[in-house]
Structures are given as structure tokens and as C-alpha cells.
């Protein structure tokens, strides 16, 4: 069959532009670089930022993994994987270690990623300061002058009111000591993985037309006070019902039939791997 479109769907000119913007983003860690977000066969807000980055950096020899909230099998992840695979012919996988490019929504895989891999994150709201300032002009000025007191004030008020910082996902981080960045809606659990990582992290917001990056070995610190430290989610000793892991990020699920509260690994690829390493034996609880 004759192919009616370019390799990786978008045209070479567009890919070059996106790669240029990625380079700029890598050069200024945490800084949001505007880019010309292209039309795709799916609507903006459904991961088009991530898809455009993936399509721009992927080559015929790459191995692709796509996850949505840690899951390889959810509709969005499957469709993106099928689409990219159809327009590039690359191999796909559910194994974090085997993949060279991983596109993700709302999670960073449990398994440690290497220098050889790229993690592409889909971003709904690239502006970390939007919570405290509605105007784009003003937030850009704030970034320009590193005027971040209002973000800190927001955290201060949270601590005073609730003795807790109420931000769950999208916890703001300071990148390279300069820019406050929205890490996309990953849970707090994944925030420490951004710091001094071996892997290149690329963030794409298709609807908001922004690309930003954390290059490998960059300092990434969650905002915290000297006497009120950042902390990750606490599962109070719960373990995954399938694989029994206690050191992973768990999804809480209420069983419809029994009304019981159960926990499962959010990273399904990792969960499967743990079960497989035990010879396919699932836990019983």
C-alpha cells in the first residue's frame, strides 16, 4: 500500500521546528518554550503535546511504550500507541526497560530509567503559577523576574489552614534553581525521580502550545519550607493485591461487589513483571 503521509505523520518542517523548540527547552531547564502546535487526528487536550514530541524524536529503530496513569492498557494509551506505530512502523512494548521512548500521562514508571531513554510527558496545564495568577502576561513577568513569592504564599496559607499542603498531583518544583515548573499531574510519589535523573524528560502541552524539559542530571526540588518538608503519598503499609509490592505507587479501588477497599500497582507493566518473575503466581489476600 502506498503511504500517503510522511514518516511519523507530521511533515519534516514541523518536526524540525518542534526539535528546535526541544533543544531550546533543554538549554533552559524548566522554561516554557512556545511552539506551533499542529493539528492531529485527535483533539487537543488528549495528549497532542506529548504525541507531537514523540513523533518528532522517534526514529525507525525506536521501541515505544505508552502509558496512561501508569497503565499500558487504557484506551488513550492503546490508541496513541497504535497510531504512532501505524505511522512509523516502530516496535511497541509494555516493558519499561526495553522501551527507548516512553510517552506517559500522569506517571513516571516505577523502574529506573537510563540515559538511553526519553520520557515524554503529556501536560494539560503547563503554567505552575496559574493557581495564583490568571493572567499569562503576569505569569511570564513573574518567571522573568523569578518573582515567586505568591506561589510560596499559597503554600504558606495551606500549611497555616490545614497543617498540610493540599496540592496532590502537579506539585510545583524548582528546576535548576531558577524556574518554578509544573511537573504535569504526576503524583508526589514521582517528584523525587525528576531530581538528578539519568533520563531526559520532555514535557509537551498541545492545547497550551508549550514545550519544556528537564535534561539529565538537573537539580529539581519540590517547593518546601525549612520546617515543613515535602513528603510523598503514604499508603500506610498497603500492598498491591496482584503482585504484593509495597514500594510502588498504588491505586485505591473499591470493589463494587463487596464494597471492600483494595490496592493495585498503578504501573501495570511493572506489576506484570513482578508476577512473571515469580513464575506467574498472583498474590491472594
Amino acid at each position, binding site marked *: 500500500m502506498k503511504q500517503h503521509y510522511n514518516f511519523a505523520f507530521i511533515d519534516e518542517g514541523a518536526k524540525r521546528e518542534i526539535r528546535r523548540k526541544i533543544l531550546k527547552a533543554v538549554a533552559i531547564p524548566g522554561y516554557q518554550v512556545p511552539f506551533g502546535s499542529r493539528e492531529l487526528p485527535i483533539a487537543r487536550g488528549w495528549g497532542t503535546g506529548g504525541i507531537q514530541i514523540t513523533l518528532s524524536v522517534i526514529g525507525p529503530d525506536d521501541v515505544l511504550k505508552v502509558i496512561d496513569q501508569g497503565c499500558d492498557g487504557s484506551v488513550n494509551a492503546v490508541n496513541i500507541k497504535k497510531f504512532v506505530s501505524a505511522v512509523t512502523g516502530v516496535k511497541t512494548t509494555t516493558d519499561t526497560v526495553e522501551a527507548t521512548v516512553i510517552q506517559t500521562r500522569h506517571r513516571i514508571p516505577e523502574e529506573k530509567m537510563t540515559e538511553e531513554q526519553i520520557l515524554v510527558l503529556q501536560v494539560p496545564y503547563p503554567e505552575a503559577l496559574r493557581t495564583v495568577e490568571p493572567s499569562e502576561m503576569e505569569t511570564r*513577568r513573574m518567571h*522573568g*523576574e*523569578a*518573582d515567586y*513569592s*505568591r506561589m*510560596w*504564599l499559597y503554600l*504558606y*496559607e495551606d*500549611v*497555616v*489552614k490545614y497543617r498540610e499542603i493540599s496540592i496532590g498531583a502537579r506539585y510545583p518544583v524548582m528546576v535548576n534553581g531558577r524556574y518554578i515548573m509544573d511537573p504535569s499531574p504526576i503524583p508526589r510519589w514521582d517528584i523525587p525521580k525528576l531530581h538528578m535523573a539519568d533520563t531526559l524528560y520532555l514535557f509537551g502541552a498541545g492545547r497550551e502550545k508549550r514545550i519544556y524539559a528537564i535534561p539529565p542530571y538537573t537539580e529539581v526540588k519540590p517547593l518546601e*519550607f*525549612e*520546617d*515543613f518538608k515535602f513528603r510523598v503519598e503514604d499508603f500506610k503499609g498497603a500492598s498491591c493485591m496482584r503482585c504484593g509490592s509495597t514500594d510502588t505507587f498504588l491505586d485505591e479501588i473499591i470493589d463494587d461487589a463487596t464494597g471492600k477497599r483494595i490496592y493495585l500497582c498503578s504501573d501495570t507493566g511493572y506489576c506484570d513483571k513482578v508476577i512473571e518473575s515469580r513464575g506467574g503466581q498472583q498474590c491472594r489476600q
Partner: protein
Amino acid sequence: MPPIIPIIEVKNLTKIFGNGCPHCRNSTGPEHETNMCSNCGSVVACSDVFFELYPGEILGIVGESGSGKSTVVKLLHFDWEATSGEMYIQKPEVRIQNSDLDGKNLFLLSPYQKRQIINSFMGIVYQNPHLGLRMDVSSGGNIAERLIMANWKNIAMMRGRASELLEKTEIPVERMDEPPRNFSGGMQQRVQIAKALSNNPLILFLDEVTTGLDVSVQARVLDLIRNLQRELNLSIILVSHDLGVIRLLTKRTVVMKYGRIVETGLTDQILEDPQHPYTQILVSSQL
């Protein structure tokens, strides 16, 4: 005795709203009885304003509404960008390390450097508490915001400092976590003063702070300002149209009309023996 060096020095300060033209300055001012340029219609809010502020001094700026006195304060605090002019600060290195600000015209600094100057040297109290305070954020948080700007990162220490300041400005410390929205006008004004003082400023701008408060509250706020000024040795620029306030607090006064300084001198002298016709009217029309 060595001469006293002014803490800030202002020269040729000008603010023009509109496109401006070469005739703006010559066609406005008290002798033309307007601050709108007859040629291009631009408004000359202030022009050629110059003065020095000495350490520990309260300098008054007095004038009728529209005379440009608040404009001057907004320019000095970098709220508005000056059209032209110069401002120099004494020994910026005392508060800002590794910066090369000595002898530099502050109006030409980058926005980031201006912010540094504000955070380390200046405090401001506006007539309207809504301008100086975040009404939905707790009073303690309002004060903490300025401390955060000065790189404080410890909540317990920030709260300690906030309660200290609120006590000083006679706000019950138990109400620290209430937003200023819940407070009376006089209390809001005192929270604003506490906020302005949080970073230990050397220079405080007070823009019509007592206007709109009832007389007894006014007296308490003025008392507070006078005590704080003595205790902390602040240099203050006090803008007011109320000659009573000027007489009570200031030693030296600048009189403005149509964006120009018409008279400068010791407050007593100006009030007892005004030289400029406008100042004479101003003084004689006092109730």
C-alpha cells in the same frame, strides 16, 4: 563633622501620560494652571521633581488632589515607570550583596534589580488597603509574603516575625490568621503598616495613610507612625493633603501643584510664612 549624606536623591523626575511632545513641559505647570499639554493633550503628572531624603527624616509632600504627589511616590516605589529622571540610593551594598548598584540611576535598572531594591530597602502604605494587602489571604500571610520575598523559608520564624509586627501595630495576635477583609478600615491600615515594616525597610512611603479614617483612629495611626519612626529610625516620605498631618509628623515639606514643586522648606516655615501664592492659599484655607 562630615556632611550628612541623603539616603535617596531624586532629580528631574518626570511622568507623562500620553505620547508627549517637545511642548509638554513648557505648556504645563502652575503658571499655566494645567497639567495637560495644550499641543498634544498628554498629561504631565509630574515634572522636574527633585529632592533629597535624609536618614531618619520624615519628608512631607503636600498638594491638592491631582498635583502629582501620589505619582511621585508610585514612581519612587517603581509601581509606575518614570518617563525620565534619576534616583540614587545611598550604599546599596549594605543590603544587597554582590551587586553593582553603587552610583547607578535606579530608574534604569532591570525589573529584577528594581524588585531587589524594593525588597531590601522600601516599604509602602497606600491610602486604600486593597492596594497594599491581599484581602483573601490571612494577615499573617500578608506579612509572610514580604518575608518570602526576602528569602525566608521557615514558617515558624515567619509567624514569629508576623506576630511581633502585629503586636507593634496593635492588632490582636489571635487574629493573625484572619484575612484583612474581616477587619475595620483602621485595623486594615495597621496591618498594611505591619506588612510594609516586615522586611525592616530603611525607606517608608506613606501615601495618604490616614485619609478616610475617623479622627480618633487617625490619631492612633499617626501616633503609631511617629513611634515606629523613632524606634526604627526610618526615613519616611509622607504624602498628604492634610496640613494637620504634615505639621504633626514632618520637619521638611515639599509643596506641589500641577505636577511641579512650588515650594520646599522647613514645615514650620512653610506653614507660618508661606512664600508661593498657592501655598498661601493652601495654608489660609485650612479649617
